[in-house]
């Protein structure tokens, strides 16, 4: 009978003192393995692949904003060298054409941005240029959304966003890269 009572007493007292240590151990393991970096990037939609070369559509020269990046990471915009720093402003000016200039786009819906790079262009430069072009559109959308809805673009509902975007569609066409300066 005495045995029985000791067994009872033992089962009643589970030592929970080491619980904290075990939890700490697990905690440290998860602390070490955790990576809290959120994956971010520039999202693009590629055109579907087709075997035939695209038919050279007749586009008015004034509606095309051609951006060329060569193997030395230099920019040629509409035939003239340009610093990437001013690319954003120039792109916005081209799309909106506030002064109704003869050589800039007829209307935002007709504006086409043509981007072409070399196989030797550095990825960093390419992404910088792409980023600036996208930023130009984002700024235009932001301005339009403020004017039309009085809200920042991010706060708009999906139909409102679509409304803003159909007025000023983002058309960035990428040509096959040239092959002049690729390192072997």
């Amino acid at each position, binding site marked *: 009978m005495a045995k029985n009572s000791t067994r009872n007493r033992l089962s009643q007292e589970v030592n929970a003192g080491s619980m904290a240590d075990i939890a700490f151990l697990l905690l440290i393991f998860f602390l070490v393995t955790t990576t809290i970096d959120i994956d971010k990037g520039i999202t693009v939609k590629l055109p*579907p692949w087709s075997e035939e070369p695209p038919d050279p559509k007749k586009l008015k020269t004034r509606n095309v904003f051609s951006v060329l990046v060569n193997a030395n990471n230099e920019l040629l915009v509409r035939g003239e060298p340009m610093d990437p720093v001013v690319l954003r402003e120039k792109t916005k000016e081209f799309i909106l054409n506030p002064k109704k200039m003869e050589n800039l786009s007829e209307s935002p819906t007709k504006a086409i941005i043509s981007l072409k790079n070399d196989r030797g262009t550095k990825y960093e430069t390419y992404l910088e240029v792409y980023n600036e072009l996208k930023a130009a559109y984002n700024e235009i959308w932001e301005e339009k959304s403020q004017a039309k809805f009085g809200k920042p673009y991010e706060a708009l509902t999906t139909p409102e966003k679509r409304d803003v975007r159909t007025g000023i569609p983002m058309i960035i066409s990428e040509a096959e890269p040239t092959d002049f300066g690729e390192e072997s």
Partner: protein
Amino acid sequence: MSKFSKKRGATAPAVSTASLPDIIFMLLFFFMVVTVMKDSTLKVDVIVPNATELQKLEKKSLVSYLYLGKPKDKYREIYGTSTRLQLNDKFASPDDIPLFLEQEKLSVPEQLHPFMTASMRVDKNVTMGVVADVKVALRKANQLKVNYSARPRGD
């Protein structure tokens, strides 16, 4: 006055540590939930460029990663120093991309296939030739939603 003197006279009670395991467990569960295990070890050096117009990648399970960069030091003897593509844990060529994408699709329900994204983690010093080859392979495999991974510009 008597109030204060009484308090000061009493011995300070020991701080109870009984709730310590609970607090630790709470932290533990927090980290368990936010943890993302690294799914593949990088064999190429990738430092992504900086950009400003960033978008978050929504669902991790819908993203397939393509790494482009120069092989790490220990692989240089075998694989050289020119830019290589890494898919999962292996070095690969752009020809392997369709098969890789099909394998990624197997783990995703069919109705979610249009939302799958290819995340390109490309080193900033890579030349566009290799990137263009990968892009053509992606287009041929009809994987048109692409995300160029980049870091926010800290200025």
